[in-house]
């Protein structure tokens, strides 16, 4: 099977993000819409209900460099969050986050955001004390 080239894949993701075709609980798009290299992306995760994240909106920065999607994107939280897979600068640590660690080419930014959200909602993480809402790294 032939591989979908980076730009095709990212264009597809861009359209999905802008038109809101994907999941409702997350959103993503280019940081700067004139960025023809489609490298810098914004993401948001709407905090899962029944957790300490409820009603919060988390902003993230996603970098899809040249080797995306062969290698996972770099994901960084802009909003402060207390999550085991996030270091104290907001970076999502590849080794601690299964979706990045066992990256597959078929994964998308949507996959990453949804998996992060799932992790926020997981039994072990949902009651973690969270920094004040609106604080950033």
């Amino acid at each position, binding site marked *: 099977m032939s591989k979908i080239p980076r730009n095709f894949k990212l264009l597809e993701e861009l359209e999905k993000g802008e038109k809101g075709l994907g999941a409702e609980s997350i959103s993503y*798009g280019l940081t700067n819409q004139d960025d023809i290299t489609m490298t810098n992306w914004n993401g948001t995760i709407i905090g899962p209900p029944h957790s300490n994240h409820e009603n919060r909106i988390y902003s993230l920065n996603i970098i899809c460099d040249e080797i995306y999607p062969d290698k996972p994107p770099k994901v960084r939280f802009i909003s402060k969050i207390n999550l085991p897979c996030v270091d104290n600068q907001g970076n999502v640590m590849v080794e601690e986050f299964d979706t990045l660690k066992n990256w597959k080419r078929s994964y998308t930014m949507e996959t990453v955001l949804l998996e992060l959200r799932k992790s926020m909602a997981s039994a072990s993480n949902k009651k973690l004390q969270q920094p004040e809402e609106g604080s950033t790294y």
Partner: protein
Amino acid sequence: MSDITITIKASGDKKYEITFDPSITVANLKEKIGEIADIPASSQRLIYSGKVLKDQEQVSTYKVQNGHSIHLVKSATKTETPAASTSQPQQPSSTQSVPSNISAGQGSFNPLADLTGARYAGYSQLPSASMFGPDGGMNSNLPDPEQLTSMMSNPLFQEQMNAMLSNPQMLDFMIQQNPQLRALGPQARQMLQSPFFRQMLTNPEMLRSAMEMGRQQGGAGATPSFPAPGGASNDTEQDTNTNPPPEIPNFANLFGGANLFGGAQPPADNRPPEERYESQLRQLNDMGFFDFDRNVEALRRTGGSVQGAIEYLLNN
């Protein structure tokens, strides 16, 4: 600047089309949305392409284009149950892409809403329509003791019970629904969360004796009071397994109010499908659906609803 039309996606699969001049500010847009979406502008938060829109900016600065979508999230209000976002599984087993609760976002908490979720599609043990009276209500408040016991020994049910009891919202709901519990105040909550209570609910033997006791005391209608959590439960904790104490109440009342027993986890029905769905199958046959296997499958998926089964049959 010329007008653009965008889709506002709110929680619970609600969508609004809105046409406006993108040179207006985000605050103005929120007011417009407030008119159609019944959420005051002050508690709206808008997200586009991964960015939270700021009130003072013009919409055009975010380069929103015709046909695009903006997510609408209601922000937290302290006074009422927040209708947060959507579709988050409380059970780790449900997958991300299937909304576990299609009526999320309704504002008020409805414990039965879960049942309409897609994850229940295909459950073979949904209640057959025969359990419901002609008016759609249950024939009786509770299944008979045999059914109940088999239901209680069902691991799925126990799991559900545990999940339910560890969900504070659910507890609040139960307490609200039941005047006796409400009268107990905060103690009620403690009691429901106590391991003792949980054990009681998950021990079929115990339940059966409790039910029988209730029956002898005058049936489900009478209302022996629930044991006060302090004294009674401490006394009884030691001998729960061997000798259910007489104070064990007609606990079913607890659930009768919320109609959970009938609704939340139907008893396993082991009758063969032709018997279980007899009347529905006949109706389907009358309507010209002759394929027995498919009819049964359709009825299973829809929990015995003829209407639903027809839809399923026509769509597949």
